[in-house]
C-alpha cells in the first residue's frame, strides 16, 4: 500500500539540520578565512542571517501550493516544458552535492583514518548504506536520522566544544580591521554550508503536518546550524589562526588533531571526531540522495523512488571517480555554491513573483 508520509515539526527540524551538516564543516574554515581573515566567524553568522531570507522565500512559495511539491508547481508556474527544464536543472544541482561531498569525505577519511583502503571501497561502503537505507521511502529515513541525531550529532557537538581547550584568544583579533566587505565576501562560501533546508521544504512541504509552523521551525534549524557553524569556525580559528586556516586543505580536522587532553581517557580528540563524523556524514548524504531520487521519481512520474535510489548508487560512484583531484573538486564545489546562490536568491524570488501573479489573476477572475 502506498500511503503519504506525515512529517512532524521535530522531524522536519532534524531533516533540515542534518541535510546541512555534512562535509562542509571540515573545509568551511578555509573558504571563509581566505576572505574574512580574523572575522571569519562573523562571515558565517552573516551567511546564516542571509540564508534566513531563503527559508522565508521557499516557505512563502510552498505556501501557494500546500499540496504540491516543487517539481509539480514548477510545471504550473513555468509551463510544462520550462517547468520540466527547471526540474531537471534542480535534480542536477541536487546530485552534485552527494558527488562532491562524498568525494571530499572519502579523501579526508583516507588521509587521516583509512590510509590503506582504496577510495572506491570507502565510497562503495557509504553508497551501499545510502542505497539500503534510502530505498524504503521517507519514513525509515526519518527514523534513521532521528536515531543518528540523538546518538551521533549531539556527541559530536560535545567533541566540538572540547576544542575550546586549545584556542588562543589572540587569534580573534583585530576585529573588523578590514571593514565589512571581507566579511560579506566570506559569507558567500558559507552559503553552501547552510544549503539543505530550502530543498527539504520545497520537496517535502506537502507531507509536513503543521504547515503554519514550517517557517518558524526552518528558522530555528538555521539558527541552530548558525550557532554550531560559528562554534566550529570560531574554534578552528582559535586553534589555527586565520592565516593557517586559509592554507589548510581540511582545517577542521587538522585543528582537532591539535587538541590534546593529556592524562585523561580521551587524550586526543581526532579519533572520536572521525568516528562520530562518519554516521553524521552518511545520514546527511542519505537525505540528499533521497531528494535526488524523489525529484527523478517526480520527473519520470514513477510510483516509487526505490529503483531510482538503487540506480543512483553506481551513477554517483562513477562521478566521484571522475573528479581527478581535490583541487578540481574544490573548484567544482565553488561553482556549485554559486549555482545554489543563484537558485536561492535568483530563481526562488522569481518563482514567488510568478506564484503571486498567478494567485492575483485567479482572484480577479
Amino acid at each position, binding site marked *: 500500500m502506498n500511503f503519504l508520509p506525515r512529517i512532524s515539526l521535530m522531524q522536519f527540524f532534524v531533516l533540515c539540520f542534518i541535510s546541512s551538516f555534512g562535509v562542509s564543516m571540515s573545509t568551511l574554515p578555509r573558504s571563509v578565512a581566505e576572505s574574512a581573515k580574523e572575522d571569519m566567524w562573523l562571515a558565517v553568522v552573516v551567511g546564516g542571517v542571509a540564508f534566513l531570507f531563503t527559508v522565508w522565500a521557499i516557505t512563502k512559495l510552498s505556501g501557494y501550493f500546500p499540496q504540491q511539491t516543487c517539481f509539480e508547481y514548477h510545471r504550473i508556474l513555468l509551463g510544462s516544458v520550462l517547468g520540466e527544464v527547471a526540474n531537471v536543472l534542480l535534480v542536477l544541482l541536487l546530485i552534485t552535492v552527494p558527488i562532491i561531498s562524498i568525494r571530499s569525505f572519502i579523501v579526508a577519511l583516507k588521509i587521516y583514518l583509512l590510509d590503506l583502503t582504496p577510495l572506491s*571501497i570507502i565510497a562503495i561502503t557509504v553508497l551501499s548504506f545510502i542505497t539500503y537505507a534510502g530505498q524504503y521511502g521517507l519514513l525509515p529515513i526519518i527514523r534513521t536520522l532521528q536515531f543518528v541525531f540523538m546518538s551521533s550529532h549531539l556527541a559530536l557537538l560535545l567533541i566540538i566544544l572540547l576544542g575550546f581547550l586549545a584556542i588562543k584568544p589572540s587569534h580573534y*583579533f583585530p576585529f573588523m580591521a578590514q571593514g565589512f566587505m571581507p566579511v560579506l565576501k566570506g559569507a558567500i562560501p558559507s552559503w553552501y554550508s547552510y544549503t539543505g533546508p530550502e530543498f527539504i521544504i520545497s520537496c517535502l512541504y506537502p507531507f509536513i503536518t503543521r504547515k503554519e509552523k514550517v517557517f518558524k521551525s526552518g528558522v530555528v534549524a538555521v539558527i541552530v546550524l548558525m550557532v554550531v557553524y560559528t562554534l566550529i569556525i570560531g574554534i578552528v580559528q582559535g586553534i*589555527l589562526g586565520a592565516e593557517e586556516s586559509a592554507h589548510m586543505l581540511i582545517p577542521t580536522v587538522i585543528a582537532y588533531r*591539535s587538541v590534546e587532553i593529556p592524562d585523561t581517557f580521551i587524550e586526543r580528540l581526532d579519533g572520536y571526531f572521525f568516528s562520530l563524523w562518519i554516521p553524521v556524514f552518511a545520514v546527511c548524504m542519505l537525505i540528499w540522495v533521497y531528494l535526488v531520487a524523489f525529484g527523478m521519481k517526480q520527473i519520470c512520474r514513477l510510483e516509487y523512488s526505490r529503483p531510482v535510489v538503487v540506480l543512483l548508487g553506481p551513477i554517483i560512484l562513477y562521478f566521484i571517480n571522475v573528479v581527478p583531484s581535490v583541487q578540481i573538486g574544490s573548484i567544482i564545489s565553488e561553482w556549485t555554491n554559486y549555482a545554489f546562490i543563484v537558485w536561492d536568491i535568483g530563481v526562488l524570488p522569481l518563482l514567488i513573483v510568478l506564484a503571486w501573479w498567478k494567485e492575483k489573476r485567479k482572484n480577479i477572475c
Partner: protein
Amino acid sequence: MLTRRPLRTWLLFGVMLVLNFFITGCWDRKEIEDRGFALGVGIDHVVTTQPKGQYDLPSVTQEFGERKYQVTFELPRFRKGEEKSGGGTESHYIFMGEGESMFQIVRAISAKTYFSLFFEETQVLIFSEAVAKEGISEILDYFLRNPGMRRKVGLFVTPGRAEDILTGKLKVEDVNSIFVSKILKNVNINPRFASLTNLGDIAEAIRGKKSFVMAEVVLENGEIKVTKTAIFNNQGKMIGEADEQEVVGGRLIRKKLKEGVISIANPANPEKLAAFEIVEAKTSVSSHLEGGRLWFTLEADFAGNLGENTEIDQKTLDPTFLSAVEEQLAAELTREVLAIYHKEQALQVEVFDLGALVRRQYPEYWKTIKDRWEEEIFPTVPLEVKIKVTVRRTGMIN
C-alpha cells in the same frame, strides 16, 4: 523446486557467507610491532660526504638534491613483559639517513627495516644549531605536509649535534625523545625554562613572516637539560640565543611567567641570599600611540612566598625588610625584562607578539608600518616596565 521465499533466504545466506571472507579483518590493520614509531627526529648537517662503509648505507639516493642533512630517527624498543631495560640505547633503536629530501630520507629507512616510519606519536623534532642557523623553514615543509604529523610536536635546537640527544645514554630508564618531552611538563615550575614551541606555532610564525623562539636542549653526562632559547628571525634562521635570565624576561613579556623561584641578594646582608617563590602572577602588556610615537607598557603584579633566607638572624616579618625584598625583586625582574627586550631590539627581531598587539590595537597604523616592523620600527620603540612584588608569607619560620 524452490519457492520464492526460500530462494531469497538462500540468497541472503549466500551473501552472508561471502561477507565472512571480507569482514574478518580491517583493511587498514597494522600490528603495533609493524609500526615504526619515530618518537624523535634529529636533523644535522652531514659531517662528511665520503662513503661511510663499503655500501654507504646512510646515503639516500635522490634524483635531485645534495647529501646535505643527516636525519636521525629514534624508535622505541618493544620488550617482552619479563625483560628489563638498562635505559639509554637499550630502550631504543636508531636509524639514520643522509640526503636533502626529508621525504626520500624517511622512505629510504623502509629499505633497512620491515616497518615504515610512523609519525603520529612523534614527540620531538631537534635541529642542530648549524642547521638552525642555515634555516629550518624548508625542512619543516615535509613535516607540515605529512598527514601523520601532529602540530603539537615539540621543536628544539641543540648547540651540538641533534643525533647526540637521541643516541646518548641517559641515567634514567626512558627513551630519550620521551624524556625530553616529559621535562616540558615542568615548564611552569621553572621560569628559566624555555617555553615549549611546537610545530603548529612555528608553522604559524613562518607563514606569517614572524620571528620566533625555540627551546634549546643539551645532553651531558647522561643528563638532559632544557635551557636557554634560540632566537630565529622572520626567515626561519637562528640568529642568536637568550640566556636563562633573559628567558625569564621573555616569558614575562609574553605573559607566560606564572610560577617559579627568583633569588636576590639579601637586602640586609648582600653576601646572603633570599629566594622568592611566585605563586600568583598578573601581567598586562599594552601598546600606546600618540602623535605618531609608539611605546609599550608592561605592568606585572607578582605575589608569593619568601621560600629561603640564608641570613638566619634576620627577622623576616619585619616590614622594612619585606618591602626591601619586594623592591629588589621588582628591580631584578625589570632588569631581566629589559635585558631580553634590548637584545631583541639589537637583533632586529620581535618574538613577543608585540607587533600583533599593535595590529590589534591600532590596525590602521599597523598597515603603515608592518613591512618595516622588525627592522626599523621595533628597535626604536621604548618599553616601560612597572613590576610590583608582594611577599605574602615567609614560610613556617619568622
